[in-house]
């Protein structure tokens, strides 16, 4: 199995387009996943009976195979980018929801009581006290969800999308390994770069965590 380097230099434009489209699908999924799981996590954190139900539901969704999720969405949204993003979003939910609930749980009661005693309103306490303190745990979830989504985008190649995953189908159909190797390497690189970027974001957002050290 040899790499055809000239194929790579001939296709840099295509590779850039696919990489951008790949990243776009993964990041949209994480963004929608956050938009859905942040409010749901607040509900699960405050209303105990709903907690088991919501976490259990996201666990069940996770057991459905990714290709099956995409396929089951076909009657709803067809062979489109929307299907890819909805499918990936469903997968991010299990990680994001669990981590956000755990993050909110980890905020010390005394801190919340102090905020209350100072006359801070509940919504303001949530936004300026609880979420920032829960951020390290939430960000750990965001990192896992992002890496997972980046790897899963390629499954959507079966429904005609899939970003870099298209290189796998292409290489398979033409019995030509180069695009497949390039696709795997670029996916891994994207995951590493995105993860490092998220670590940097977290570092910038939580200055108080490093004052102690």
């Amino acid at each position, binding site marked *: 199995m040899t790499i055809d380097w000239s194929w790579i230099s001939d296709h840099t434009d295509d590779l850039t387009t696919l990489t951008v489209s790949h990243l776009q699908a993964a990041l949209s999924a994480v963004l929608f996943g956050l938009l859905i799981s942040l409010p749901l996590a607040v509900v699960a954190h405050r209303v105990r009976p709903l907690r088991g139900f919501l976490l259990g539901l996201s666990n069940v969704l996770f*057991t459905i195979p990714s*290709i099956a999720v995409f396929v089951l969405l076909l009657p709803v949204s067809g062979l489109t980018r929307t299907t890819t993003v909805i499918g990936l979003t469903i997968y991010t939910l299990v990680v994001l929801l669990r981590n956000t609930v755990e993050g909110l749980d980890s905020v010390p009661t005394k801190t919340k009581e102090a905020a209350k005693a100072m006359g801070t309103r509940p919504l303001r306490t949530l936004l300026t006290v609880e979420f920032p303190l829960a951020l390290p745990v939430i960000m750990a979830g965001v990192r896992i969800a992002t890496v997972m989504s980046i790897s899963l985008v390629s499954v959507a190649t079966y429904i005609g999308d899939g970003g870099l995953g298209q290189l*796998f189908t292409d290489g*398979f159909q033409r019995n030509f390994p180069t695009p497949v190797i390039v696709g795997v390497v670029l996916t891994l690189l994207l995951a590493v770069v995105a993860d490092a970027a998220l670590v940097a974001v977290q570092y910038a957002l939580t200055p108080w965590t490093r004052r102690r050290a």
Partner: protein
Amino acid sequence: MYELFKNLGDWLTSGEQWAGPDGIATRLAEHLQYSLLATLIAAAIGLPLGLLIGHTGKGAFVAINLSSFGRALPTVGLVVLVFLASGLSMWPVYVALVALAVPAIVTNTYAGMTAVDPDVKDAARGQGMRGHQVLFQVELPLALPLIMTGLRLALIQVVATATIAAYVSFGGLGRYVFDGLAQRDLVQVMGGAVLVAVVAIALDLALSALQRVLFRHRTA
């Protein structure tokens, strides 16, 4: 929409669909064979590795990074790559499924081992137990619930992913998904997808029931 679900119901329940060499029963058996064998191989690799890392405390860096590497590795790409390298054999399927399952098993085994109370380990050593005795008689039993969780997680992912065996011309329930996609037969595609999901959920429930029976004396 209603029509689709009615056809899907017919497809899943008709006798002729279940019988024969490409019937659901055969595909189901193939799917289970790929999944269980791959998970067994992965356990044979992952369990000793996780136990060793957890017991010695060496190589924790490997255990942690292996899990994110495993998450990042695109399975579809791996299958195609091994297929192109090895030709028509079962290698691509098993390599990809084992590669998917090993990180989940190693990291959960390692997590189970590190969660064992250090005082308990010290007490075991203080009683004169040797290294391997501490590992097999103290650490392993205490870490078992988390190890089981890792095996369950691995099996679910493997069952879901074994669908791709059909992509490189093998059997299993993925056959319906890929044949259906090629023939633009949505009912067949959805039938295959539903079956895979049902198998994954059923195995997960069965294992969690088994786990409850095995560890019922532990629950507080």
